[in-house]
């Protein structure tokens, strides 16, 4: 391998990463600006603590929606060596997970029903 090879490879790599950074709209976790104001600080604790050892996709995509299960699971994570999750941290983490897995789907379903009702009304009055 020559030095020229190395320089070319390095420049190509930097270009790929730069482009990826510029166009990437995906993220590991949620866009905090889209969250309700009262949820943002809980999400911040969740994102900081739970991304130490694994991606945030693991809990967010797990499909779990029971508070009792989350309680048990977060306790298990807290006990992992070096987790950095204290007992006090579990309160905002569990509050966020409750919102994410219970309140948010409920609100989304209600909004969907309301939109469907509006659409039905509009269709009825328009006929």
């Amino acid at each position, binding site marked *: 391998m020559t030095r020229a090879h190395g320089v070319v*490879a390095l420049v190509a790599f930097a270009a790929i990463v730069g482009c990826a950074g*510029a166009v990437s709209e*995906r993220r590991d976790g949620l866009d905090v600006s889209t969250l309700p104001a009262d949820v943002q600080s809980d999400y911040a604790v969740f994102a900081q603590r739970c991304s130490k050892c694994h991606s945030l996709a693991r809990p967010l995509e797990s499909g*779990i929606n029971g508070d009792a299960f989350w309680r048990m699971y977060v306790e*298990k994570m807290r006990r992992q060596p070096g*987790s950095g999750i204290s*007992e006090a941290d579990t309160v905002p983490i569990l509050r966020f997970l409750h919102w994410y897995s219970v309140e948010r789907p409920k609100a989304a379903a209600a909004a969907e029903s309301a939109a469907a009702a509006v659409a039905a009304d509009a269709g009825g009055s328009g006929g």
Partner: protein
Amino acid sequence: MTRALWGLLAIVAAITLALWSPPALALDRTFAGSVQVDEHIAPFQPSDTYGTQFFGGFTTELSGKIAADLSEHVSANVKICYGCHGFETDMAYVDLRVVDELNFRVGRFSPSFGAFNLRHDPANHKLADKPLPYDMGRMLRLRDWNMGVLPSPFPDNGVEIDGSHWFGDMMELDWAAYAISGFKGAESSLDLDFVQSRDGNLYYVDDNKTPAGGGRIAATFRLSPNTDLTFGGSGMYGTFDPENRFSYAIFGADAWLRAGRTNVRAEWLVRRQEFSDADPTQLKYTFAPGQNFFVKHGAYVEAETPIAPGVDALARVDGLWRIGDVAAASPLTNDTFVLRYTLGASIVLAQGVRLKLTPELWQFDYADASGRKLEASMHIAVAAAF
């Protein structure tokens, strides 16, 4: 005898507590897993080194884990992995947790050693390969080195007692002590035989009736709400041969600074490895009586930081340094090293799916057959967690 009795009583107490404890609440089983496919390109490697000194082409690492909470104090975990050498049981253990500070783990598991092993799953580290001290066959010239200091993961059969305690919200202390079967090797072996140590065809049982043992202690300090600093130390000792004549001792020290989503990790491992001196002709150098051992150091420093919403940049310097006699045919000397410089990017393709770009520059202190000391390689991997 008294110690054994206390140990037995402790286990009986844990089982009794587990049987009395209330059943698990709600849903009590989870399934999780990951998959990574990695294309390893080493454009300047001679083609006759493929498959012997370097695994080029695609490799896949796959894992599936089921965790079951049997009660508030008892849980079971089974994790099956598929990798370069087929299927392996990475975990099959039961945890009997009396309190946070006292947990009994029995079965098959990777004993607590070092900081990296907790993140060994490809979904949990953002470069495509492992640091050299923990390398398990993805490095260049892997046969020359017989891989890293402690190839990760290192599942084994045994018992571990571990626990953790928080001092307020400022400091977490973790500890573990364990007895396991230990690594294996033939009486005439010049190093640990990692194939024999994990090969079911040679039986998943101890080869010398003497357990290996070790432990770990680590402290995590919360310096600010978003800044943690962890220091850890680990040790492991055992004999590997059927006659219990030759020992290995592994020590490790690690530090991990996490500030926001930026991580800086450093770890050092060293293994003092005894080997057979029965046949001096299989060795390259002569040594004084009692000097039939080598010392293998491994270390890495790694920094990882987000540079855009879905992009993390990484930089790593790692290496191995081996001091001591080698096999007669080995290209290594009795004082030899390799350094590797890695730049990396981890790009989110979708929630839970990452593209990992990992170019590496290798600096060996000895030339290969074509006279090269400097090598370059690149990993392109996609990893998904589910």
